[in-house]
């Protein structure tokens, strides 16, 4: 099904928005060659191109770190802001209310999200701000040249750092416990899945957390360590095959064998189609999701796919009861109450 959508885009020069892939690109990456983050940037470009999203309708946010540099490597026409370490969520939240018709994509890393940013990350989740929150998770600090991050596994050995004595923060688990309404885990070495999950996340009316294992080829890519390409390739165990179907596309029964498929209908009418691979997995059960993550952790599996989704929880924007006009376009006449109203206020204070 997703193949169908992709081909519609890639065979033509332009998509339905009249834009070519070049309209979604940006400055060349200055990250290391082979960095998982570049692959994720490319999938963001592909997802937005294929979904015919005009770049001006997306706003990019990031914190500090290698991951946070990446928003300048995709969607060059979009507005974006590179905030403070671990404090992108608060900036994105405030900015989102400038114009709630825009889609927000946040790019963070494990250093940015799982250390100083853990508080803002969890509070962003608690508020269910409609936003795609991608963690490019490599277990290591790249910009400062190879220190352990809070997601580095116990016992990991790094060149200058020695052996990591602490247990890692599991970002997907934190998101689940924080009651995120969309939690996925993927692997930069599985671009097709990354792209489909990004598409689904862009349609989700609420916080969509994507914890993407994105190897650091320079400081942390030893065979058999978590967060490496080798380990990811050997241990990735997809929960299902994910396909995203935009609202206007019709899904036909021939596309999927009966009984193998589970679909989740999102707020805007789009669907996430999950094709069973090895065993049944229900991504609408938080309990099952936590159980699965715990099992994966014990068995050293990299379980990827849509871990949890609840499309029907009201978002923070829904709760605000805002006027239809984007707030940043309201005219002055709607911002200043009348002179008479001040007379009444004055009188009430006598």
């Amino acid at each position, binding site marked *: 099904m997703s193949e169908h959508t992709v081909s519609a885009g890639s065979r033509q020069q332009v998509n339905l928005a009249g834009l070519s892939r070049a309209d979604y690109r940006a400055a060349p990456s200055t990250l290391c060659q082979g960095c998982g983050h570049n692959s994720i940037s490319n999938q963001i470009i592909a997802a937005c191109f294929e979904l015919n999203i*005009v770049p001006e309708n997306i*706003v990019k946010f990031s914190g500090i770190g290698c991951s946070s540099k990446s928003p300048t490597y995709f969607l060059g026409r979009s507005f974006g802001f590179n905030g403070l370490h671990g404090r992108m969520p608060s900036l994105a939240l405030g900015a989102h209310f400038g114009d709630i018709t825009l889609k927000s994509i946040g790019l963070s890393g494990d250093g940015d999200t799982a250390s100083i940013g853990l508080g803002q990350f969890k509070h962003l989740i608690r508020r269910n701000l409609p936003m795609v929150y991608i963690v490019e998770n490599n277990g290591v600090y790249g910009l400062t040249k190879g220190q352990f991050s809070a997601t580095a596994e116990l016992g990991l050995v790094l060149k200058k750092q020695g052996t990591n004595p602490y247990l890692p923060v599991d970002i997907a688990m934190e998101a689940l416990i924080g009651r995120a309404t969309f939690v996925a885990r993927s692997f930069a070495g599985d671009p097709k899945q990354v792209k489909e999950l990004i598409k689904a996340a862009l349609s989700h009316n609420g916080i969509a957390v994507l914890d993407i294992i994105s190897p650091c080829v320079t400081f942390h890519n030893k065979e058999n360590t978590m967060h490496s390409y080798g380990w990811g390739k050997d241990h990735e165990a997809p929960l299902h095959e994910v396909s995203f179907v935009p609202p206007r596309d019709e899904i036909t029964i021939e596309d999927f064998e009966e009984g193998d498929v589970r679909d989740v209908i999102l707020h805007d009418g789009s669907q996430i189609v999950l094709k069973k691979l090895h065993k049944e997995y229900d991504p609408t059960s938080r309990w099952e999701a936590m159980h699965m993550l715990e099992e994966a952790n014990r068995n050293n599996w990299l379980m990827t796919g849509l871990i949890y989704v609840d499309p029907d929880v009201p978002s923070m924007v829904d709760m605000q009861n805002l006027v239809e006009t984007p707030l940043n376009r309201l005219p002055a006449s709607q911002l200043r*109450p009348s002179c008479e109203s001040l007379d009444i206020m004055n009188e009430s204070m006598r």
Partner: protein
Amino acid sequence: MIQNPVADVRKEIEGNHKIVNDFCITISTVNGSGSATANLTLLRTLFRMGIPVSGKNIFPSNIQGLPTWYTIRLNKDGFLARLEQDDIVVAMNPASFAREENYVVPGGVLFYDEDFAHPITRSDIHTYSMPVKKIVKESEAPAGIRDYLANMVYVGVLSHILGIDLDKIRQTIEYHFKGKKSASDTNFAIVQKAAEWAAANLVKTDPYQVQPMPELSDYIMTDGNSAAALGAVYGGVQFTAWYPITPATSLSESLMEYLPELRKDPETGKNTFVIVQAEDELAAIGMTAGAGWAGLRSMTSTSGPGLSLMEEYMSLAYFAEMPLVVWDVQRVGPSTGLPTRTAQPDLTQAYFLGHGDTQFVLLFPGSVNECFEFGWRALDIAERLQGPVVVLSDLDLGMNTWMTKKFEYPSQPIDRGKVLWEDDLKKLLEKRDGNWGRYLDIDGDGIAYRTLPGNKLPGSGYFGRGTGHDEYGHYTEEPDVWERVFMRIAKKYETIKKYLPAPVIRHEPGNRKAIIACGSTDMAVEEALHLFEEKGKSFDYLRLRALPLTQEVADFIEEHDEIYVVEINRDGQLKQLLTINLPREATKFVQVSHMDGLPLSARWIMAEIEKHEEMDK
């Protein structure tokens, strides 16, 4: 019921000596005992009798149980600063009774609960004991709320002894309970009973009286935090994120009250604003900065410790040029300090916020009325400047109820600064052969044109960042580009000076001595100047209302030989800032500062200046 009648006091009364509308009442209660209603009733009733009045709450950082004092100053001439003089003391707290007895001035008055076991030791004061429990019991008020009603007893007794109109008290109580009839009836019943009891049982021996004056029709009564919030509402605030902290909390809570009342779309009833209680100040400032960047009139409020946490985002907002307003309602620091006491200890902190070379617009409201004015003006300045504005209020201004001039409707239209929407940008690009950049100084005033997310014109988007960038927002580490962009930002702060509130100057030709102050000390300075005048001494006075420093301030300083800088902190922070700005004038400045948690009084300022003048001789 008269205790310890004293011969010389009696003589005063016989000699018809009266003290009318010019004294202080200090009421001592237990924190959390519901005394606020009683105290505000007294305060507002006096105001409604036309008597200039101010009230100050001296309260502990505690919810219930510790002593708390409320002082009311009546002054027929309109001086409302703190007066360290307890003419009349109402003692409702047995724990602090002995202390309060000593506070009373000779010839003053002590009202106290008759249940107190302490013997009266003073013989030079008038005393009235009040059967508080008895009066409350007889009122038939529900048992559960009796403790909270006890304070209405002194309202009734004082009304009788001082001559406060009971009918006006009733109206004030009704106002206080916003038409909740049973609550106002229950409270007023106690007042009435207490007044009746006093009429039947007390003989007035003291000289203090209140008398109605012409109506104060140009004035209102409110606190600076409410005023700031209301001012921001009329300034079009659209986004506020905040985290609770004394003494700033009530500013945001006032926004929560006023915004839904005044800023819903009249047709749809939908909101034109967003209020977020953040998880901490780090997040509150991040949200505020994000909203400001995205084109919303954006503000937060906090106090010293919160401002410390906001520092890194303030530095980003300076460099990435994001408009936002921070209200710092100052309290005693450093550290947690005295969270419920007033001071001006954040002047240098706010001035120097952020690592690297930064600069901030600081505003200093000097009255509740000015809190309203700066409420809207700060938002205009922030968007004109494209940068953060810090408004430095304090606990005394923010949390105490003051008599103040009625709020005036903003005198100028909302200023959104240099913003380009699709058509504006198209025109500009046509005019300039496509040469526009977010950080390009097109007008030569240091302020560039900004676009906002949501602008659909391809090319309008840019990437905001705290890293080095060129005029088009692209990352760069080029030395000359960095310096060019950075110097251009400095230029903005020259341009913005003409948008700042000018200093308030009182100048007499030939006068070579002056006082400089900022913020809430104004009332005390004004009164000190008056006291000096009575002694035949005159000082010029400049009340600073904004930084960066303007030429007008520099000229004033140049024209004087000796300048007393009056402020509420230990180290003379305003003096430090003036010195840094005008190093050649440094020797002219004399530090007149102290910080003990209380507002300055005119007498203290006068004594300090006199001490220095004495040394000069």
